[in-house]
């Protein structure tokens, strides 16, 4: 079992499960979950083994080296001699092909290729393990639903698409599965399609995501035009030259391998637009709260733990591209932090438990973007660290909310129930654990990842306080990739003597400063840090407001629940208990061993010199930890003052908010703004276009078409309205013209 075979297995097993469910779902009846659960479980085991394989092949702790194992399955499309980049000096590797050949046309060649590296391995484990627990939970939750097989087919299909998305070694494949997960999301949000709101929410999610996809598509086109390939990995052309992939060892090792300036910034901003769509960041966040119309397990898996993190993955994966564009990087942080703050503010006044969690997801994803934008190794690894902890504790919270909804007869408005801790002890306890993790209370998982995020922002705002690697802290810097250390790659060719093509690039690698670059200064970063800290407090507040409203105080149950309000069956509570374990411990374990950061540092994308030199010795930041904890504690205290033990409809804090409250309750009127500024005008234009089409284009073409016939009305008898006559006239005319032409020539 070679690693490449295992890598193919991870997506393949869920795919087979999905197909099996589609084909045999009806026959399996109440056991229609079997293929999906078994398939995803097997995929999870394989993903874990891949994690081990990856960890082993990255070398020892002292001499880590990048892991980069490429598997090519088949050629998707090829167009020979398609494009000769006129300007890119990195078109071909020097030494082997300089001069004419270096600029010869390259094929538009797209292969179905997958790459295993630490980032991929980490993501695969998250996707399959959360996917498995959600699938098991759904056995109970979706019980008796008429669409039972359809649900499991879609979940398996989603796990397949998402695994492919993070394993793809090609920007086109990323785009393919970017949209594929979007389609799964569309079908799952609209799972109960009879509900008009669900159908609307599904359409909205797809369309808002399409705007993001617009960015990804154009970004991919620009990447193709700039780099002459879409592959991540280096490829070997038949004549022996190496075509450096966008994120391949050759280009990564080159200090000027990436295009900056206006083109580079445009590419990065377009990728960021895509990430904003999928990860529900401002200004494209509007679809995620509505997406809660879907079944809760789907929300947990797709709209909390995995799919929405695809944007974070994309930016992290494209880190070297962003490193060449400081303006784009700081934009990532600004969007992330702003989103975190705005979503947290809106989250404080929501009364729908799932919507509180949805805004919390948007806010936490904003956190991840905030630290991605710092452009430091710490920032990138912290984002993935938070992605990981968040996946577990947010899935736990969503499944907990689902458990509440399940026993409340489908009611999810927190004002209509309360005091459920006695009724549902397991749900209440695990929900509390998830909340502590989300609020960032030590020693739960979220505390450690949030601390790293704050640290990465802090290091940009107060650079003199932190020591960069240039000052000698090389403790965890992986060895620079060189030809001899490429043990993991497929193309171990000793082609890199001297990087002698750097001089070519100096003209292209201009330092022309884009306007955005001016934002990259400590004052901005300081502001972002404080915004992040405030968000931490707000997060703790809305989380515990939800906890107190739902689980404390006197027991209240809505009528819809009937008399069978009870703790959920064990098939649902077991996944909760399992998820509570990583939500509690995984942050502490990964932080103290520093395992994840070390592991991720061997990701090819993070081994480019511009990132390696930002590596710092890992230190626990006591000052930041105290600030973060104080903010969280303050939030919890305010929540307790407002809601602990009281009837949940005594909204103390909301009253304090005064006029701000309706503003927040209406989600800052962003939906209405889009409707007025974008949707309505386009509909108006479309309406006018349709009128124009009917009354102008059609008439004028008709007029022109009838002109010859009108001329022919001189000869009255011909205009009999019989089609044969017209046809005959046409043929005679043609013959006459031919005779004339023959005579003239």
């Amino acid at each position: 079992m070679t690693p490449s075979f295992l890598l193919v297995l991870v997506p393949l097993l869920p795919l087979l499960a999905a197909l099996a469910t589609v084909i045999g779902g009806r026959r399996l009846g109440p056991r229609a979950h079997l293929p999906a659960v078994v398939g995803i479980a097997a995929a999870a085991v394989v993903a874990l083994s891949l994690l081990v394989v990856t960890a082993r092949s990255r070398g020892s702790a002292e001499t880590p080296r990048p892991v980069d194992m490429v598997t090519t399955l088949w050629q998707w499309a090829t167009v020979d001699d398609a494009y000769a980049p006129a300007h890119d000096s990195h078109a071909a590797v020097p030494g082997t092909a300089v001069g004419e050949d270096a600029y010869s046309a390259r094929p538009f060649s797209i292969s179905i290729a997958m790459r295993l590296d630490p980032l991929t391995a980490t993501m695969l484990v998250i996707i399959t393990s959360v996917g498995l627990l959600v699938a098991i939970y759904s056995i109970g939750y979706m019980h008796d639903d008429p669409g039972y097989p359809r649900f499991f087919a879609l979940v398996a299909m989603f796990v397949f698409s998402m695994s492919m998305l993070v394993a793809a070694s090609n920007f086109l494949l990323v785009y393919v599965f970017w949209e594929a997960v979007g389609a799964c999301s569309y079908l799952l949000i609209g799972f109960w399609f009879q509900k008009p709101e669900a159908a609307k929410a599904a359409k909205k999610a797809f369309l808002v995501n399409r705007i993001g996809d617009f960015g990804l598509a154009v970004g991919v086109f620009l990447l193709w035009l700039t780099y002459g390939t879409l592959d991540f990995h280096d490829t070997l052309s038949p004549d022996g030259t190496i075509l450096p992939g966008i994120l391949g060892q050759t280009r990564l090792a080159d200090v000027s391998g990436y295009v900056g300036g206006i083109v580079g910034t445009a590419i990065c901003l377009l990728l960021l637009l895509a990430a904003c769509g999928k990860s529900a960041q401002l200004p494209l966040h509007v679809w995620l709260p509505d997406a809660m119309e879907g079944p809760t397990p789907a929300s947990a898996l797709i709209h909390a733990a995995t799919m929405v993190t695809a944007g974070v993955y994309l930016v992290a994966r494209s880190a070297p591209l962003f490193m060449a564009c400081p303006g784009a990087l700081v934009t990532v942080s600004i969007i992330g932090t702003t989103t975190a703050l705005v979503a947290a503010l809106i989250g404080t006044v929501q009364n729908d438990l799932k919507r509180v969690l949805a805004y919390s997801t948007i806010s936490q994803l904003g956190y991840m973007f905030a630290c991605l934008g710092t452009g430091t190794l710490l920032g990138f690894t912290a984002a993935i660290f938070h992605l990981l902890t968040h996946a577990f504790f947010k899935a736990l919270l969503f499944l907990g909310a689902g458990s509440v909804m399940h026993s409340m007869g489908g009611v999810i408005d927190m004002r209509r129930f309360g005091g459920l801790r006695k009724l549902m002890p397991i749900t209440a306890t695990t929900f509390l654990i998830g909340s502590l993790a989300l609020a960032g209370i030590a020693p739960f998982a979220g505390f450690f990842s949030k601390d790293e995020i704050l640290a990465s922002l802090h290091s940009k705002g107060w650079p003199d306080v932190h020591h960069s690697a240039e000052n000698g802290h090389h403790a965890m810097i992986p060895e620079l990739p060189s030809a001899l250390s490429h043990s993991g790659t497929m193309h171990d060719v000793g082609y890199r003597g001297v990087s002698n093509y750097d001089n070519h690039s100096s003209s292209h690698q201009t330092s022309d400063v884009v306007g955005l670059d001016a934002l990259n200064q400590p004052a901005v970063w300081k502001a972002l840090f404080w915004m992040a800290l405030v968000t931490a407090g707000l997060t703790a507040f809305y989380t515990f407001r939800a906890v107190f409203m739902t689980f404390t105080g006197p027991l209240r149950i809505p009528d819809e629940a009937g008399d069978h309000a009870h703790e959920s069956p064990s098939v649902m509570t077991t996944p909760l208990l399992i998820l509570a374990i990583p939500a509690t411990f995984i942050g502490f374990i990964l932080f103290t061993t520093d395992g994840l950061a070390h592991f991720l540092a061997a990701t090819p994308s993070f081994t480019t010199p511009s990132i390696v030199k930002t590596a710092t010795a890992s230190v626990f930041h006591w000052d930041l930890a105290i600030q973060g904890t104080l903010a969280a504690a303050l939030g919890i205290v305010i929540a307790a003052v407002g809601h602990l033990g009281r009837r949940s409809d005594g909204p103390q804090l909301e009253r304090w908010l005064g006029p701000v409250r309706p503003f927040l309750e209406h989600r800052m009127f962003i939906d209405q703004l889009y409707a007025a500024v974008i949707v309505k005008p386009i509909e108006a234009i479309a309406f006018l276009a349709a009128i124009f089409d009917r009354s102008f284009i059609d008439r004028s073409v008709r007029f022109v078409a009838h002109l010859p016939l009108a001329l022919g009305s001189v000869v009255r008898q011909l205009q009999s309205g019989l089609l044969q006559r017209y046809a005959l006239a046409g043929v005679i005319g043609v013959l006459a013209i031919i005779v004339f032409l023959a005579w003239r020539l």
Partner: protein
Amino acid sequence: MNLLSPSTHLLLVILMPLVGAGIVWLVSSRGLQAVRQSAATTAVLTLVAAGWLILRYLMSTEAASNQVFAMVSVPWLTGGMFDIRLSVGLDGLSLWLFGLSALLSVTAIFVSWEAVTERAVGFYMLLLLLETAMLGVFVARDIILFYVFFEFTLVPLFFLIGIWGHDERRKAAITFFIYTLAGSVLAFLGLMTIVLWNASHTGSVTFDIEALTAGLSLHPLPMDADGGYLQWVVFLALLIGFAVKVPIFPFHTWLPLAHVEAPTGASVDLAGVLLKIGIYGFLRFSMPMLPEATAVAAPWLFALGAFGIVYGALVALVQQDLKRLIAYSSVSHMGYVVMGLFALEPVAIEGANLQLINHGLSSAGLFALVGMLYERFHTRSIQSLGGVAKKAPWLTALFMVFTFSSIGLPGLNGFVGEFMILAGSFQRAWTGVSPELQQSYLILSLMGVVGVVLGAWYMLWAVERVFFGNSRLPPSHLDNESQESLDLRWHEIVALAPLTVFVLWIGITPATFLAPSSQSVRTMTLASSNAFNRQMQPAQGHAGTEMITHNNESSDQQDRPKTNPTFQKPISVKQ
């Protein structure tokens, strides 16, 4: 294998539907069942034979060396100078369109299974005649033969719309006929000019397409005032003829009308195959034979394509009739093809060529499904339908598949073509045009991507209204005994299943479909690409753009005195 030579095989495929039409007529006395069974058998056998021929082509040496396969050339109207031949042959450019024609004919017959029960004999005979014409038009290697098939597609379709159509069928049929006839007459004039020009330089009057292409590359039609801008005149004549077929904005208004009124079977063939003849004409005639004019016109056609994408999508957005909406989506999707073709970049051209097939599959599927909805509820109004998914889950599932294909969801076929077209367009905009055109090209390419967003908007809006939400369905008109099952019936599954297979197949391994036509399409467009590249070189770039306006104005002025007598003379003589 030698029992059936490729040439015989090809002739057999073309003639089978014709024979089938005869059989349908013979069995007409035995009732509806016999009629439609014999029609269906014919179509299926033709499809099998065509598929087998395609396989033989793929394995042949001709395919590898980009030559014409299964060439047949029989003298037809030969005498004196004239040498009009019945010559047919298959090459990379014809290959998939040929297969698509055979495939969609099967679909057309099976979707009409229950829908057409009155005067069924005539209906199925016309469908089969149409199939022969469609197959013939893509394999004809002689201009006259091409034109005969080209015109011959109109007649069956005219009657199919005019007799079996809906309320306004007569108006639709006549509009359709006049539009396309006017266009094709102009195209014929252009083609004849080509023949005569070639004859005047080589001394022999040949109608053979390959010989003409070779001849015109040696003696190109003149582009300057001395030559009467002849290349321009011919190009415009062909342009109007083919643009009406495609249809390119603003020649598209016949299409929604024709589709809305046409019976489902005719819509399937019309959207799936007949629209492609226009693009095929550009690829087969305009681009190899008139490269200089194509190069000068390319920016304008690229712009019309991009504009058509957004325009078609916007108009589709406010349609209330589901079939009309899909007709306008066709306008939008064919805009992609036009854009890709006239980007004159290899990636875009190959994408456009594939997109022809993709659009054929997805629009045929969607029209077929709308027809099925109409059969059930006797309405196509989006407002009066709702919640179909509950009653007809498999119908809904297939509609989703074709919707996703149409809006370019990756993994399905539509994405491949769209992506390649847009990638090529951006490539052209990035490095391939003169600086003063670059901005326009970038904006036009972005309009193409905007079309992808709008496409999802109108299609998903329609899906949401028609299939999801509360059930508010009019009573079913299916005359089966149980009114409960509104889902797909067996003949509907037979009609759609093959399309679904290809939608997935092309999406997953497009290389299988790109490779066989790659060389052929590249050869056809090489001259135009080169001419355009020359024109766009920085040194001459300015001159090139000047030429566009210059030529447009003066060709109009110059033409008048020459052509007016042509039209007036015969009339005055008669009077």
